[in-house]
């Protein structure tokens, strides 16, 4: 057996002897590894952005909205037929054990004025449970008090974008703004949440007590009306079991007979997110495996060139055998050559892949995030490809007969 250092220097010399051929051979591996890294990074980025969405959305969320109305044969969208009451939410929270919190929401777009500045944004009536579900904290100030909620106090909590638009650098706390001409006192400012995954500004919003919204700002068709209710289940699994129970409870409360359609719509956001996450996982695997195919093709390229190389160097093999190389020495020599070739390709591929990821994340709308695993995986895969496809040429070389190999011209 010859030592590792000599084996490697023999392999490196053979690779250097045919520089352009070596480069072309490893090109397949370079492209394969780079492609796998970029594809996995894109898939990984998609998954991460979904996970971030889930964090800002709150966990284990269901929403119930008013149903659709039909007027003159035209069916209108969800929420056009007002049917939900805040009391429905309270009943769900109280009677369905899977549901931990229920926050009522009544929202509309309104013009906000402070001094010379004015800004149109979404005004949402709710109570403190909503912030709890969304795990949304105040940057400063306070949430609604019990009396605020009970007495329809004219107080408002602002999103950070609204603060910027109306107050600039001024401290908004305790200041008065007008919503639809009605004066409100600013009691709090929420932490900045940034853009949601669909690109809307989550901070461009203001919150007022539900009772205030119902009685003073947004008109309602019947007492205690809300547009939707956001529900939080105790865990992800409960969101599924809760859905049927909520349906039964609401049908009962809304006095819907057997033949009547639901006048509400239940959405399981957790389920939707899980589906999105799963589909992005599938996408990652799909992209990764397609890219792996190019790595495999690169391996076949290595095998091809190694076979050519064995034929070309038949005489060299003959000399080595005559001088005392055993079949394993010859096998090891060509196997090492294939391995070194593919690992060099793998290394360059990693460098190209990382630059590719950088380009993608800077110059395209895709988010690409590299993790260490996604570098080690294709790199070691390239090594395995080299060993696998190098084995046959190496084996063939070791079977040569020294007499015929020496006579080979």
């Amino acid at each position, binding site marked *: *057996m*010859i*030592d590792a*250092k*000599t084996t490697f220097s023999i392999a490196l*010399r053979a690779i250097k*002897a045919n520089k352009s051929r070596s480069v072309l051979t490893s090109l397949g591996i370079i492209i394969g590894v780079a492609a796998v890294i970029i594809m996995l990074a894109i898939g990984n980025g998609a998954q991460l952005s979904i996970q971030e969405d889930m964090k800002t959305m709150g966990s284990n969320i269901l929403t119930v909205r008013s149903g659709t109305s039909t007027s003159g044969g035209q069916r209108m969208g969800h929420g056009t037929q007002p049917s939900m009451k805040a009391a429905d939410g309270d009943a769900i929270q109280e009677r369905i054990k899977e549901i931990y919190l229920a926050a009522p929401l009544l929202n509309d777009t309104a013009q906000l004025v402070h001094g010379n500045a004015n800004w149109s944004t979404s005004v949402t009536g709710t109570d403190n449970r909503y912030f709890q579900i969304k795990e949304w904290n105040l940057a400063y100030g306070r949430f609604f008090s019990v009396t605020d909620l009970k007495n329809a106090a004219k107080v408002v909590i602002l999103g950070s974008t609204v603060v910027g638009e109306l107050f600039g650098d001024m401290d908004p706390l305790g200041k008065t703004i007008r919503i639809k001409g009605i004066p409100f006192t600013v009691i709090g400012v929420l932490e900045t949440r940034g853009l949601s995954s669909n690109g809307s500004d989550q901070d461009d919003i203001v919150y007022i007590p539900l009772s205030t919204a119902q009685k003073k700002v947004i008109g309602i068709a019947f007492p205690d009306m809300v547009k939707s209710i956001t529900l939080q289940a105790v865990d992800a699994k409960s969101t599924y079991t809760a859905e049927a129970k909520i349906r039964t409870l609401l049908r009962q409360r809304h006095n819907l007979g057997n033949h009547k359609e639901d006048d509400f719509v239940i959405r399981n956001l957790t389920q939707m997110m899980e589906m999105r996450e799963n589909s992005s996982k599938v996408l990652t695997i799909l992209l990764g495996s397609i890219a792996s195919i190019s790595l495999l093709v690169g391996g076949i390229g290595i095998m091809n060139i190694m076979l050519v190389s064995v034929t070309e160097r038949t*005489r*060299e093999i*003959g*000399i*080595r*055998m*005559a*001088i*005392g*190389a*055993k*079949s*394993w*020495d010859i096998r090891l020599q060509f196997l090492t050559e294939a391995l070194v070739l593919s690992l060099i390709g793998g290394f360059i591929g990693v460098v190209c892949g990382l630059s590719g990821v950088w380009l993608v994340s800077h110059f395209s709308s895709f988010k690409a995030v590299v993790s260490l695993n996604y570098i080690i995986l294709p790199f070691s895969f390239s090594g395995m490809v080299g060993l696998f496809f190098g084995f046959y040429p190496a084996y063939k070389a070791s079977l040569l007969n*020294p*007499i015929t190999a*020496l006579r080979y011209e």
Partner: protein
Amino acid sequence: MSLIELHNIKKSYKLDGFDLRILKGINLSIEKGEFVAIMGPSGSGKSTLMNILGCLDTPSSGNYILDGQNIEKLSPDELAHIRNQKIGFVFQGFNLLPRTTAIENVELPMVYASVKEEIRKNKAKDALEKVGLKSRMYHLPNQLSGGQQQRVAIARAIVNEAPLIFADEPTGNLDTKMSIEIMKLFTELNKEMGRTIILVTHEEDIAAYADRIIKIVDGEINSDIKNPQIK
């Protein structure tokens, strides 16, 4: 005991269903320190005998004892080990590795004998010095003349301290002046270092350097005589 003992060595190939008998029962013994020339016209079985003697091939039947070891039934890897330890080859076409310096070519037998790099380098330097090529140590084969390349090959053959040197038409590719130099080197190795040399040639004046001349004709030993007038 003799270095080489052949007992009734036969070799035949199957060719289109016929048995092609190349060697028809060779009996031969060669002592340590002999300088033997094997001669014969092409087709005489000279090359086949050389391949068997050089442990590159095995006989169809008969016994071959090299340095006390029976080798007619050894596996290819075991033969490789014997070649590495006991035989140094010098070929007509030099057969140096291309793109590999003289010293690395000389090191090669020791690489396969797992000799440590430092020792390898020193021994290779000594061997190159013996053949008068120390100053050309780091030259590549294509930077050397034919005679120099053959001397590198000789250095490679002696470096592993193999008792037997096998030279197959070593001067076939060289001009007369170079041939004389190379043959003088062989004589020196034989006389001063006690290496056993088996020389295969078809040229009378090259064979004349040997002490003993064996002629093969038609797969059999035709004559085996002491060289009356050694050069």
